[in-house]
C-alpha cells in the first residue's frame, strides 16, 4: 500500500468511523432504552424497517438497527440470526416480558420510540444512516 493510498484510505475511514453510535440513534429517535446496561457505543452501520420477520431475514445486511412494530420474542431471535445490533420499537410499544428477558440474555439492546415507522425511518435516513435493506432481485 503506497503512502498516498494509505492517506486517502484513512480519509475514507474517517467518514466510515464517524459512524452512528447507539447513543446518537437514541437521541435521533427520542428513544428510551429498555434493557439495563446497554452499551451506548455500539456502532450502527445501517437501518432496516420491517414487520415481517422473513423480510428481515431476506433482505438485511449485518450491523443494522431494526425498526419494527412487533414486540414478541421472535423479533429478538430473528435479529440475532440476521446479525442486527439493536431493535427500536415504533409508536411507543413495550415488549413482552419474555422478549425483554431474551434480549437481555442475548445482549440485544431494545429501544422504544414514541414515533411511527415512517417518521423514524425518515429521521434516521436524514441523519445519514444508510438503508441496509437489499433490493429484491428482479428475475
Amino acid at each position, binding site marked *: 500500500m503506497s503512502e498516498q493510498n494509505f492517506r486517502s484510505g484513512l480519509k*475514507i475511514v474517517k467518514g466510515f468511523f464517524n459512524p452512528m453510535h447507539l447513543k446518537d440513534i437514541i437521541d435521533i429517535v427520542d428513544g428510551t432504552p429498555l434493557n439495563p446496561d446497554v452499551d451506548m457505543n455500539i456502532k450502527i452501520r445501517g437501518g432496516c424497517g420491517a414487520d415481517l420477520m*422473513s423480510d428481515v431475514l431476506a433482505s438485511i445486511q449485518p450491523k443494522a438497527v431494526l425498526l419494527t412494530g412487533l414486540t414478541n420474542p421472535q423479533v429478538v431471535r430473528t435479529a440475532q*440470526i440476521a446479525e442486527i445490533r439493536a431493535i427500536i420499537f415504533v409508536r411507543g410499544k413495550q415488549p413482552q416480558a419474555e422478549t425483554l428477558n431474551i434480549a437481555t440474555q442475548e445482549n440485544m439492546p431494545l429501544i422504544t420510540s414514541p414515533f411511527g415507522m415512517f417518521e423514524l425511518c425518515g429521521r434516521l435516513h436524514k441523519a445519514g444512516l*444508510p438503508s441496509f435493506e437489499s433490493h429484491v432481485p428482479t428475475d
Partner: protein
Amino acid sequence: MCPPTRTPTEQETHGRHGRRITDHDANDINRVEELSYDLKIREVMSADLRATSPEMPLAKVLDILRTNRISGLPVVEEGNLIGVLSIEDIVRAMMKNDLSAPAEDYMTREVVTVASYDTIVKAMRTFTEKALGRLPVVDENNKIVGMITKGDITRGILVALQKDYKEEEVRRYRASHLFEDIISERTTLVLRYTIKAGDFTQGGKASSYIKRALLRLGADPQITRRCSIAVYEAEMNLIIHTTNGGILKLEVEPHRITMSATDDGPGIPDMEKVFQPGYSTATEQVREMGFGAGMGLVNMKRCVDTIELDSTVGKGTKLVMRILIPNQTFGGRREGQNDEPSTNH
C-alpha cells in the same frame, strides 16, 4: 526533512466536507486502517525519552544526536516541554561557529505536539500537515511522555496485526482442529434439536445454538450467516406448521453442512406452490407474529446450495438443505472432493 513538493490534502482535492463515503469505500476498509483509529499514540510511541535541558551546550547535544542516530531532541525543563532542537538548528549554530551556546538559544520554541491519548491517525495527519518526521508526545497535563516517529507507527501496527493474527489462530484452534485431529474416512459432527410444535417462546433457540457452534468451529462468517438463516426458517416452520413438532439436525463435515428438518405431519398438500414467494398457509395468529409471509422456503433456497423437500400428506415432511464449503473453513483439508466416487461422463 521538508519535501520539495507536498501532496494536496484531501480537503484541497475534495472540498471542505471531504469525499463522500460510499458503501463500496466502506467495504474496502482494511484492518490496518481500522487499527489506525483504534491504536492510541501512547501504545506505539517510544517512552524511552532522550531529552536535553535548556542549558546543555549544543556540542554536547550534537554528540547525543550522533551516538543515538536521531535527528532531533525535545528540550525539557522540569518535565515541561519548552522546545525542540533539530539538526537544522544545530547547523544554524555551526554556521555562526556557536556550538558552545546553550540549547535554548537555538531551539524551536513553537513546538507541534500530539497527545498520548489521541489515536495514531492524529499523529499521521500531523506528520503530513506539518511535514515533520518526529513529534513529542504530551499527556493530559502537557508533560512530555515520549516521542513518536513514522517508524513507531509502522511498528505499532505490525505488532497489533501480529496480535490479531495470534488471537485468530487461537480462536480457530479451539474447535476447528476437531476435524484435523480426528482421523477417519469421514468425520461428521451431528447437532440434534427437538423442536416442539407451537412453542414460539423457544423458537429460534436451536438456531442460535447452531450459529454459536459454527462460529466456534471456525466457520466462515458468511457461511455461518447463510446456515443460521436457513435453519432458523426451518425451525420456525417446525413450530408453526407441524402437528407434533420435529427434529432439527445439523451435520457438519469439513466440506459441507447438511441441515435437515423432519416431522411426522401433517404433510404439505400443495408441493408445487411452496416455493412460490408469498404462498402461505399460516394462521392469522402466526402472521401477527411477523411470520407466515410465504417467504420461508424462498429464503432458505436463497441461502443454501441444494434443497430437497419431500412430503406426504398424513405422514410427514422431510426438508434437507446443504451448504458446500468451498475451502478449508474448518481447518481440515478438503477431502470431500475425493471421498465420493467420481462420476465419469
